[in-house]
């Protein structure tokens, strides 16, 4: 156990006599907390879960990683102080961001760290009394929250000391504590809501969407934050002019800080102070009184759902859940037999595999965020200028098209990998003549799945803003995306879909992949840029591009068993 954990453990165990008076067995409490903290240290934290490179090295001192990451997030949150004209504005934004970040981090931690269903089998059958278990759980949550909150508010605290003095920063610290309580309430409420709306099974996937969401928000916040610092337009922004601002709880806290630090007790300040003091305690009371009792029961449902067999669906016929959309696409774009099977298999796996979603969706989010941020922060680009300034429209259109090809590339790289790669025995024990059909089917599924939404997202605004004249270039760009991806599929290492182990992923493909993801799209984009204005040349190239895609796809179909790579021995 590292120093931080030891220190926090000593702090929370300090009121020992109080615990014993409550009927807690302090020795048990100490061992439960110790073991929990040791485990926290060895578990990849929320941030590492996303970009888990899966090194073979066992995770150690994850706590330190968590704290450093929180501190970095705290620094990002400082960007809020450059938005708006006064502290009410700064703090409203700052507190909102803090609340969103903390809630999204904690919501995934609650299932993965704080409430471990294995406790039911390991701790509960032991002669440990209920109070000890409850107190241990509460203290564990407290320690965990401290490890996140303290580093996260540290940059803000330092900033406040320098700018508003000791009193201001003290107020800030207390308010952050109250907001943290409120955030815990929000999480509890969300949990109850999610459990109402979905099955316990669906719960896990909702949680993983939250993790994806955090990753994207953090990235977007970083992108925007860095740019916001030098944009003067935001500095004069004032959100307090609208009455609707009172809907935002973070505004209460900001206004409370403002009222208390300036001793300016207008009625509105008093209301704000009252709200920010009362709501957290009221909400925690609601959590303890109403949420907590059903909470454990509900969570054991999540755990129980794995153990029990799926109930037989009565009444309605169990029909295949292949959507009409997917089967229509399969009919249109694939041959019957292995290729169609590969297509549908990959289509369903990409929709249902948590692993795939966790790897690809954040990337999709990054590209979207990057595109939006690029558009928002560039001062020259506006909707009007896109319509009238041809050369600007050209650059924006092309960069968006070729940027989005990264989404496709990420998806097709990832379909090779699966945590359950051992299930790939199905390919090797069945009489498949040529694996090329399967590979091509899967490749088509991964491409189409992300390609069609991209076409819609790009084509609709482009046609609306730039008119029909954009069609040839749009078509060439979109065809080129297909070409890039199929080339990538052809040149890169050939895996059967979901058959490779990410942990020992073949490093030999990395260089080629890197080359393709960076160089090839840029080169093609550059060529496209020079051809942009010659409509006829563009049309010819579009035909060439789609023909080339066709040929490459044909070549992929000829993949033989000899070149197929596998982790399955």
């Amino acid at each position: 156990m590292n120093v931080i954990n030891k220190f926090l453990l000593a702090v929370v165990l300090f009121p020992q006599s109080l615990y014993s008076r409550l009927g807690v067995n302090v020795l048990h409490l100490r061992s439960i907390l110790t073991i929990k903290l040791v485990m926290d240290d060895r578990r990849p934290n929320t941030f590492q879960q996303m970009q888990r490179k899966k090194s073979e090295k066992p995770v150690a001192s994850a706590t330190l990683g968590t704290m450093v990451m929180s501190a970095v997030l705290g620094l990002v949150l400082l960007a809020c102080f450059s938005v708006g004209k006064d502290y009410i504005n700064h703090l409203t934004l700052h507190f909102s961001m803090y609340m969103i970040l903390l809630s999204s981090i904690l919501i995934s931690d609650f299932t993965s760290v704080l409430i471990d269903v294995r406790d039911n089998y390991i701790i509960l059958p032991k002669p440990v009394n209920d109070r000890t278990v409850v107190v241990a759980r509460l203290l564990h949550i407290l320690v965990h929250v401290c490890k996140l909150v303290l580093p996260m508010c540290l940059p803000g605290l330092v900033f406040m000391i320098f700018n508003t003095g000791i009193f201001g920063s003290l107020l800030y610290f207390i308010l952050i504590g109250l907001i943290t309580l409120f955030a815990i309430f929000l999480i509890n409420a969300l949990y109850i809501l999610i459990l109402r709306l979905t099955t316990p099974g669906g719960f896990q996937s909702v949680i993983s969407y939250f993790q994806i969401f955090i990753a994207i928000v953090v990235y977007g916040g970083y992108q925007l934050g860095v740019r916001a610092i030098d944009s003067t337009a935001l500095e004069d922004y004032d959100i307090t002019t609208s009455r609707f601002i009172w809907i935002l709880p973070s505004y209460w806290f900001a206004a409370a800080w403002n009222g208390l630090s300036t001793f300016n007790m207008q009625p509105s300040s008093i209301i704000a102070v009252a709200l920010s003091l009362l709501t957290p305690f009221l909400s925690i009371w609601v959590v303890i009184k109403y949420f907590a009792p059903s909470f454990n029961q509900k969570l054991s449902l999540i755990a129980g759902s794995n153990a029990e067999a799926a109930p037989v669906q009565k009444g309605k016929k169990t029909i295949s859940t292949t959507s009409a959309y997917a089967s229509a696409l399969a009919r249109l774009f694939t041959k019957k037999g292995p290729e169609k099977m590969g297509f549908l298999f990959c289509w369903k796996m990409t929709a249902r595999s948590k692993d795939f979603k966790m790897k690809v969706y954040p990337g999709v989010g990054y590209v979207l965020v990057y595109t939006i941020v690029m558009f928002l922060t560039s001062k020259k680009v506006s909707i009007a200028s896109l319509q009238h300034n041809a050369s600007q429209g050209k650059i924006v259109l092309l960069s968006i098209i070729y940027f989005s090809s990264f989404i496709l590339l990420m998806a097709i790289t990832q379909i090779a990998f699966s945590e359950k790669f051992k299930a790939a025995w199905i390919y090797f024990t069945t009489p498949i003549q040529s694996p090329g059909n399967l590979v091509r089917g899967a490749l088509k599924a991964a491409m189409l799945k992300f390609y069609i939404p991209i076409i819609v997202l790009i084509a609709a605004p482009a046609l609306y803003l730039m008119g029909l004249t954009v069609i040839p270039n749009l078509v060439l760009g979109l065809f080129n995306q297909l070409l890039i991806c199929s080339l990538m599929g052809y040149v890169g290492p050939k895996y059967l879909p979901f058959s490779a182990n990410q942990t020992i992923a073949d490093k030999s493909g990395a260089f080629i992949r890197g080359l393709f993801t960076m160089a090839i799209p840029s080169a093609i984009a550059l060529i496209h840029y020079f051809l942009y204005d010659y409509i006829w040349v563009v049309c010819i190239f579009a035909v060439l591009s789609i023909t080339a895609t066709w040929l490459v796809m044909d070549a992929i179909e000829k993949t033989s068993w000899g070149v197929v790579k596998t982790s399955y021995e």
Partner: protein
Amino acid sequence: MGPIISLKNVYKSYGDKQVLKGINLDIYPGQVIGYIGPNGAGKSTTVKILCGLISDYEGEVFLKGINLKDDIIAAKSVIGYVPELAELYDVLTPAEFLGFMADLYNLDAAIAGERIIKMMSAFGLEGNIHQRMDTFSKGMKQKVLITSGLLHNPDIIILDEPLSGLDANSVIIIKELISKLSIEGKTIFYCSHMMDVVEKVSDRIVLIDDGVVVADGSFEELKQQQGNYSLEKIFSGLTAKNTVSNAAEQLMSAFD
């Protein structure tokens, strides 16, 4: 001598689904109980009640004369529970995990440390004591779990499918261990789906189906009642309602 485990009219429902419909059982020290039944019969519910994981049941349960509803902590101290499915904190090492278990059983650290080394060595895991268990095979984890259930020298040992994942040699060790423990006067509550093992290790078999005890007695007694068949046959005769033999026929007829 009075019974060491005693269930009197135990009922339990989940919502409106009644899982246990009046279980009455008296189990005496030194007995090895083979507790069997089809999926959903109420086996694991019974185990959860005995371990104190479920408290909202009707009826009375006594362990070593202690009513579970009066002093659950004292009752838990006399049980060693080995859960199925290798449920353990696998980022810990066996030494850490077992040390933690010993703490929860209020076992002296020095005694526990010595026992852990002895028991792990007996399982051939002395070289893995300080390795994290996430790299362990299912069998190795199962050995750690069995150790954790025996560490505090309990009088009642509840084993839930303890042989899953173990290789043939380890199976022999566990079987011998069970008979040695019962000679020592320990009571073993053995839940399993593996009829051939239950047939061999247990000296009393309790078969439950749909929340009620449908057969109770030694294997010999069951054979006298139900005919001279294997336990497997007796089991399916009592619980399967003719579906087993038909199922195989239907499977074969799928080719026609």
